[in-house]
Structures are given as structure tokens and as C-alpha cells.
């Protein structure tokens, strides 16, 4: 690459002026002439037979255009919603899910009917007039009970409630346990949580009948996937479907899939001949947008008394919900990376996916890796506790040191230096001093806790060899770099930014690679009409895969420009020097052409024989490996034993994501990621009624999302261990904070309460839960 100017620069985001001034354009800001509004009528029951639907009264309301049920959609929408293999190609059953319930509702919030009306108020009124009779059926509400033989069924015609049952085993696990000096066991629950993107889902569908074309604005992370599946289902060629993901107000994995409402809205436009808008309300978002986590781990760890870890054996029970999420089996990755930063003789992990009459789970920030980190970091602390060794020392003793490192399941950690991030984090918190202070405070009846989390994560999804079998299409990434005649540049990418700042960071990459001023480079994404097929943004992949696609296209442009320069200078190509956008013959820098001049020349006369006009390039980048960010987070808490309240005194994070394009953006991603992990550790939990399967946390009144009053400041530092996987040397940072933080917080809480003999605390560590545990211990 050229001498770095923009890469690594802490520049402000160019996205922001429009966003801070109210000029962002989100889906609900799209208004078309003649646009109608859709409201979805949803099942109030977790499981019920639909015995009748009477839409008469709703249809008669003035301003109602149509009331549509399953039968109305049947001629327009074909096929079931997609389910990917993810990490489980041999699922035991893959029940078909259709966008709208037909005869039986399997989860609360499942669409039963839609109302299309002149405005959203009338549509909401009419929705209440749709009269549906239900026969409630037994709701399967507990995935552990649901897997027992003879349990009630999520749907009567299924053989059982098991979606998958698969075991990943590496090494001789029995030998590891046979040679162990200690064995520790624990049950670790990953409660269900809501992703809560601030912008709820929504879409605007505009079907034009005589052209047979559909344009869909939708709040999604994956516009090309939505087009792919929607065009198939509606029987339209992809070229007739245009999906636009405009500004998107957060996603966190919850907008990674095509959803029923996108199909229904598109079909409603086709059936009514009107553009149709649908906006999710928050109560619908909590009911019907996919949830995260929802897993129970039973773990056993074999170790020696000197702290050497030997074997890890566990079961993951995953609450799938009523239907497989499109990527729900992705969370099984927890089994493959649960070994963390450590060397193990053997790991054996069994994953069982269990259906319940609940909303589907699907990826939520980190997706499987927060679960893995939480599991292994709790495990290490349990071992440390059992043998009376400092948790930092147990970690050091077992760290992997030689890279690339092939883990138990054949995954190759590309680069790392785990001691370095641990040492730096401990230095930042003054670990020895903190331990002394902890001792002193305990004498005064105050309970300070210090929690460590040393993590490694798999991201940058992903190499085609690994992801094509899992997803059907390989998760490579695409770009077009177009240099206009004046030297202005348009970079068009297949990823989608919804807060990550790609408009800025991808332009930083292109500016350096092309030697063209940053301000002359625009980045476009999100509109399938003018972007190459792209795989979207999730799994901390956009930079390590998409950023590389940008770099590759820039390199192709530079190569062509060099050829043209050689022709103009009548020199050999090898003698052309490219220096920050200036092209000259070696030894003669005074006589240089800028890339702008050369770009103009590519659109004119006098090109070398055989050279085509214009200056643009397309690239699809297929990475040779995943990338493996790592780091150490330390959380310091004080628990008020009178109330059970947890106060976070300090939160220190030292992360290594390889080379950094924009440190401000990296820090911001870490802040938000850490906050979501803290939120899961201390506050958030989706709760359903055990008997009826009714959602009990159905509004933001009942589900506590932390505010500015609850969350701490974050003290960040980083080390830089470039990734050898890609030329930019970058890894990913979108999920690292969440992957690391819940374990740091819970380890701190457990450490604080260890004088009470408490050795494990489940999430969320709410005051009532901790207070009860402390009271129990005192008895």
C-alpha cells in the first residue's frame, strides 16, 4: 500500500452531520404517492388453533382497503421461509414456516391477518375489528422439559421437539477426565434477551403491476439476501426486485434475516395495487423480532491442581422457538470456540436445539461467541477458586502461545499475544493494589470484586470453504471502485452499515490505496440496484472481508493506471513509480501525472492498444481464514450486601483487533459492545409465563434497557497484532465488547461474593437475585 495517511486516522464520521440534524432517511421517512399503511394482527396465544376469522367489520370501516389472511396470500407468496445449515447440516427436522399462520399459531405474535388502510390510525382501528376465534392449545414453554420423551408438542404433527442433537468431540475426553486431579461442574444459563435496535423493523413495498417490478425499502442488515429470498417467493426474477436498506437505526443481528412482514408487505402491495408501508411498534418488536441467546450450558472441567486445564465437556441446550431462525444453528459455534484462549487436551460438546412455543432465537451481537466466552471464563474462575490460585495465573498457565494455532476443532487462530493484553489490563487496574484493597474493604464489611475475561473471537465470516456448506452461498464480499473522469471516486460495496461508519472508514482505505483525496471518495451501499451482490453486515466481517474487497478493487484501478502511465511516459511498467496518487518514471518525480489526470485520460483518446476505456474495477474477496481478535477485560464492582445492588467501579478493556482504520470508530464499537454485555449480565431478561407462554416483558416498561444512569465509563487501550489473514492486517471489532464483557462482570460479582461461599451467579445479576443469595448464605 501507499504511505499511510488516512488509514489509522481518528477522523470524524462523514455520516454524522445529516444524522445529528434530523436529515437521516430511515424507512419510516419514506413516503410515496398513494401509499397505504399495513398493520399486522398477531396471535395473542403462544399456541392455539385458529377456528375462524371474521374480517367483515374490519372491511366495513371507512378507509380500509383490504383485510388479508393466509388464503389471500397463497396465490402470491410461495414456499417457506429460509433456514440455513449454519453449523448443523443434519438437523433432525426443519418444519416449514410460512409468513402468515394458516390454521394454527405456534408463538405469541405470529401474524394471522393484515389490514391495509389509508392511514396507520385507521389500520390500527380495523385491526381491532378483525374477529378471530382461537382454541388455545398447550404451550411448550421450557426447553429443558420440552426435550423429554412424552412432552407436549410445539405442533401436533411433529415427531418431537428436537431440532438438532449434534456432538463435537476432539481428543480423548475420557482420558482427560481420568487424569484430572480436580473436576468442577456448573450450570450456566444464557437467558433470552431482546436485541432492541432503536429503530424497529419496517418496510415500504411498491409493486408496479404492468412492469411487474417490486421496490422494497426495508430496515435490514442484508438487502441482497432479502432480495434473493423475496424474489424467489414472489416468483419474480431478481432483476425485477429492488431492495433498498436506507439509513438503518441499529440491528445487532435482529435484522439479519428476511422476515414474514417483508413478504406480507410486498404481497399486500401486489394484491391492493398500492404502495404499502408497515412499521413495527415496540410491543411487536419485542414479540416478533428474533431474540438472542436462550441457552443452558451444563459444563464439566477437568484440571490439575497446578492450574493446568485438561478437558472440557458440556451440553448446550438451545431454545429455538417455534421455528428455526434463519441462522439459529449459528449459535452452535459456541461449541467450537468454547476452548477460548487456552490449550486443552480434549473438548466434547453436545448441542441440542429444542423447539418451544416462543419467538425464534437468532443471532444477537456476538451470536455464540459471548456464550462461549462466558462459559470458558466462568470455568477458568471456577478452577482457580477450587485450587486456590489467582485467576490471572490460571489464565497465563494455559494461554496458547504459538501462532497460527490450530484449536481442538481445526479452526486456525491467525495471530495473537494473549499475555500482552492481560498484562496491560492488569497494569491499568493496578491488580495487586486492587487485591490488597479488596482485603481491606472486606474487613470493613464491604465487598469489592475483580472479574477478568480473556477472550478470543472468531469473526470475519468467512472463507468460502467454511461458509458455503453452512449458508449455501459463501460469505465472500464485493466492491466496485469507479473513478470518474474528474478523479472523483464512487466506492460501491455489498456490505451494509447501520452505525458502523463504513462511509468513513471504507473511504479512508480507498483514499490511501488510490492516492485520491478522501473528500473526493463517496461510499454507497444498501441499494441492490446499484451494488454488486453482497452478503451484508454481521459477524464483524465488513472490514476484514468487505474492506479487503475495496482494497482489491483499488489495486486493480492502480494497476490499470500504471499501465496507462507507462504508455504515456513511453516507459516500462516496472519503471513507473506510484506515490500517493502521483505516477512518474523512476528517478524523475518532477514529471508526474496525478491519478486524476490519468483517470481523465482513460475516458479519452490515445489509450494503449488493447486497453478498454474507463477506470473501474470489481472485486469479490474470499478470505483464506477467519480473523481472531482477542483481549482482556477487567471489571471492578462493589456489591451492596444490604440491597444486592452492583456498582461498577471501573471497566477496563484492552483489545487487539489488528491494524486500526479509525480509532474513534473502534472505541465506539467497543463502548456499545461492552454496554450490551453489561446489560445482559446485570439487567436484561426476556421472561415468559411458564403456564400460558405469555410474554411478561412485553414493553420497555417491563424490560429494563440500561440508561446513561446505569452504565460506567470505559477505560480502553489496545495492542496491535496485525492479522496475517488479509493485506490490511485487520480483524473485527463490532462484537468484541459484547463477547468479552458479560463474563468480566459476572466474574467480578462472584469474586465480590466469594466470602459468602457463593461460587456462581446467573445472569442477570439483579439486586433481588443477589440479595436472596446473600441472605441464603447468611442463614
Amino acid at each position, binding site marked *: 500500500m501507499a504511505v499511510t495517511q488516512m488509514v489509522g486516522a481518528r477522523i*470524524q464520521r462523514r455520516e454524522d452531520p445529516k444524522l445529528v440534524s434530523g436529515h437521516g432517511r430511515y424507512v419510516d421517512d419514506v413516503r410515496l404517492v398513494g401509499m397505504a399503511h399495513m398493520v399486522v394482527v398477531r396471535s395473542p396465544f403462544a399456541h392455539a388453533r385458529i377456528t375462524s376469522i371474521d374480517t367483515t367489520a374490519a372491511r366495513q370501516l371507512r378507509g380500509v382497503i383490504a383485510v388479508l389472511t393466509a388464503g389471500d396470500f397463497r396465490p402470491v407468496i410461495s414456499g417457506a421461509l429460509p433456514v440455513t445449515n449454519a453449523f448443523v447440516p443434519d438437523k433432525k427436522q426443519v418444519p416449514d414456516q410460512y409468513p402468515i399462520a394458516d390454521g394454527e399459531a405456534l408463538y405469541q405474535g405470529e401474524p394471522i391477518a393484515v389490514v391495509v388502510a389509508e392511514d396507520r390510525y385507521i389500520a390500527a382501528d380495523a385491526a381491532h375489528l378483525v374477529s378471530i376465534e382461537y382454541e388455545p392449545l398447550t404451550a411448550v414453554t421450557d426447553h429443558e422439559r420440552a426435550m423429554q420423551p412424552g412432552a407436549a408438542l410445539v405442533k401436533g404433527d411433529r415427531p418431537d421437539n428436537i431440532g438438532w442433537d449434534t456432538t463435537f468431540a476432539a481428543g480423548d475426553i475420557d482420558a482427560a477426565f481420568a487424569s484430572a486431579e480436580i473436576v468442577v461442574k456448573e450450570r450456566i444459563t444464557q437467558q433470552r434477551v431482546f436485541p432492541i435496535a432503536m429503530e424497529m423493523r419496517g418496510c415500504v413495498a411498491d409493486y408496479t403491476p404492468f412492469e411487474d417490478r417490486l421496490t422494497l425499502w426495508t430496515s435490514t442488515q442484508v438487502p441482497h439476501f432479502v432480495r434473493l429470498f423475496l424474489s424467489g417467493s414472489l416468483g419474480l426474477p431478481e432483476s425485477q426486485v429492488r431492495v433498498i436498506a436506507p439509513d438503518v437505526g441499529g440491528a445487532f443481528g435482529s435484522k439479519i434475516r428476511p422476515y414474514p412482514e417483508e413478504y406480507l408487505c410486498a404481497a399486500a402491495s401486489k394484491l391492493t395495487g398500492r404502495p404499502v408501508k408497515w412499521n413495527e411498534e415496540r410491543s411487536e418488536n419485542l414479540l416478533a423480532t428474533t431474540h438472542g441467546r436462550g441457552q443452558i450450558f451444563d459444563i464439566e472441567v477437568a484440571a490439575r491442581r497446578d492450574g493446568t486445564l485438561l478437558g472440557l465437556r458440556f451440553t448446550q441446550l438451545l431454545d429455538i422457538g417455534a421455528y428455526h431462525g434463519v441462522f439459529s444453528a449459528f449459535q452452535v459455534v459456541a461449541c467450537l470456540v468454547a476452548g477460548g484462549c487456552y490449550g486443552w487436551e480434549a473438548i466434547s460438546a453436545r448441542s441440542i436445539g429444542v423447539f418451544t412455543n416462543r419467538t425464534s432465537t437468532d443471532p444477537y451481537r456476538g451470536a455464540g461467541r459471548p456464550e462461549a466466552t462466558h462459559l470458558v471464563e466462568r470455568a477458568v474462575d471456577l478452577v482457580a477458586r477450587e485450587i486456590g490460585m489467582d485467576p490471572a495465573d490460571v489464565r497465563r498457565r494455559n494461554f496458547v502461545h504459538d501462532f497460527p494455532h490450530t484449536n481442538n476443532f481445526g479452526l486456525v487462530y491467525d495471530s495473537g499475544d494473549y499475555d500482552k493484553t492481560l498484562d496491560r489490563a492488569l497494569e491499568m487496574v493496578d491488580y495487586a493494589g486492587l487485591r490488597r484493597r479488596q482485603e481491606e474493604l472486606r474487613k470493613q464489611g464491604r465487598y469489592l470484586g475483580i472479574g477478568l475475561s480473556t477472550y478470543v473471537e472468531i469473526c470475519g465470516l468467512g472463507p468460502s470453504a467454511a461458509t458455503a456448506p453452512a449458508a449455501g452461498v459463501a460469505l465472500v464480499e464485493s466492491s466496485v471502485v469507479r473513478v470518474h473522469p474528474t478523479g472523483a471516486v464512487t466506492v460501491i460495496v455489498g456490505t451494509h452499515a447501520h452505525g458502523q461508519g463504513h462511509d468513513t472508514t471504507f473511504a479512508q482505505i480507498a483514499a490511501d490505496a488510490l492516492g485520491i483525496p478522501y473528500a473526493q471518495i463517496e461510499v454507497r451501499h444498501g441499494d441492490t440496484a446499484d451494488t454488486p451482490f453482497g452478503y451484508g453486515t454481521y459477524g464483524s466481517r465488513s472490514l476484514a472481508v468487505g474492506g479487503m474487497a475495496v482494497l482489491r478493487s483499488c489495486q486493480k484501478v492502480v494497476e490499470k493506471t500504471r499501465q496507462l502511465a507507462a504508455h504515456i511516459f513511453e516507459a516500462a511498467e516496472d519503471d513507473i513509480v506510484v506515490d500517493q496518487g502521483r505516477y512518474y518514471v523512476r528517478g524523475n518525480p518532477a514529471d508526474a501525472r496525478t491519478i486524476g489526470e490519468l483517470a481523465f485520460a482513460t475516458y479519452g483518446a490515445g489509450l494503449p492498444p488493447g486497453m478498454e476505456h474507463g477506470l473501474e474495477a470489481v472485486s469479490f474477496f474470499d478470505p483464506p481464514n477467519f480473523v481472531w481478535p482477542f483481549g482482556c477485560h477487567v471489571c471492578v464492582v462493589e456489591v451492596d450486601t444490604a440491597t444486592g445492588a452492583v456498582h461498577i467501579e471501573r471497566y477496563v478493556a484492552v483489545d487487539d483487533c489488528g491494524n486500526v482504520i479509525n480509532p474513534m*470508530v473502534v472505541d465506539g464499537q467497543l463502548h456499545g459492545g461492552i454496554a450490551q454485555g453489561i446489560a445482559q449480565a446485570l439487567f436484561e431478561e426476556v421472561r415468559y409465563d411458564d403456564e400460558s407462554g405469555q410474554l411478561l416483558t412485553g414493553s420497555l416498561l417491563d424490560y429494563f434497557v440500561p440508561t446513561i444512569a446505569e452504565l460506567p465509563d*470505559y477505560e480502553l487501550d489496545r495492542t496491535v497484532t496485525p492479522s496475517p489473514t488479509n493485506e490490511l492486517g485487520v480483524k473485527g471489532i463490532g462484537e468484541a465488547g459484547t463477547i468479552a464483557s458479560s463474563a468480566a462482570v459476572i466474574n467480578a460479582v462472584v469474586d465480590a461474593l466469594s466470602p459468602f461461599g457463593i461460587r456462581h451467579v446467573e445472569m442477570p445479576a439483579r439486586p433481588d437475585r443477589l440479595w436472596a443469595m446473600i441472605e441464603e448464605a447468611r442463614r
Partner: protein
Amino acid sequence: MKQSVAITVNGVQREDAVEARLLLVHYLREVAGLTGTHIACDTSQCGACTVLVDGRAVKSCTVFAVQADSSSVTTVEGIATGSTLHPVQQAFWDEHGLQCGFCTPGFVMATAALLDGNPSPTDDEIRKGLEGNLCRCTGYANIMRAVRSAAAAMHGTGEVRSTATPAGAATAESKSAATVGG
């Protein structure tokens, strides 16, 4: 039955006939065409719809348009001066106090109201002043910085310390400064 309302929105006097049940937020977005004010919950928890009604911060999803009759409403679109951002908007930009930007209009307006009543708030006062707004992207740390920075810029309560540099004067971390056209 529609009712007539006279509302001054960002300094422009409007008269509209609206249904009594029309929420102020829908009035602003769909009648006045100002889509910067957002909706992110049903229960007044999130504050994304915060606007100023006669100078006071109000969650516009909890107010009917008819209740705002004869009052003056300021939205996020109404506080910049020409192409110059309001100091609070500028501070959110400078301090990376936003990511997806969806909650930002609400935070900007709530901050503007907070600083109007308390030009140099303590961190605790900032927390109390903004606990009615939710953000899911930033973890709030940079929002804290933005509010402090805006307070300093507006009221000269201290040095304005930005952690970011403008695009035109990029400095590379651990590398020497280089100026690029931007």
C-alpha cells in the same frame, strides 16, 4: 371530526386541521413533514421523539397535536443556523456520540433543554437529565463527553476538548501528522 390547530414549528406558523387523537410526533412527521423526530417505543421510555414545546423538552409521543395548539415547537431540524450545526449537534459529532443515529435527535433535544436550564451540569446532573433517553449503540460514554463538550462550548465553562480531528486535518495514530485534501 377534525380540529384546527395553530402551531409554530421551527419558527414557521402553521395552521392545520387534525384529528383530536393525532399524536404530536405524527403531526410533526406526517403533517409538517419533519421526519427528524423519531419513534422507538410505545411507552415513553426511549425519548427518541423528544422535541421542545415552548422551550421545554417533551416526549412528543405522549402529547396530542391539539394539546400543542398555540404553542411553539422546536425539532432537531430547527436548531442549526444555516449550515452551522447547533453546538450540541456539533459536540455529538465531535465526540462520536452517535452510531446509527436513530436516538440522536432525541438526545440532542434533551441535551439542548438540559443545558438551557443548567449551563454547566455535573456528571450526575447529566445522568439525571438524560435518563429518559435510550441509546443502544454508544454505551453512553461518548454521549457524556458530548454533553460536557457542548456545555463548555456554549457557556465557556471550561476547555473544549475534542477527541476527534476534522477530516481535513487527519492525524494518524502512532504516525506523524499528514494533511490530506478533505
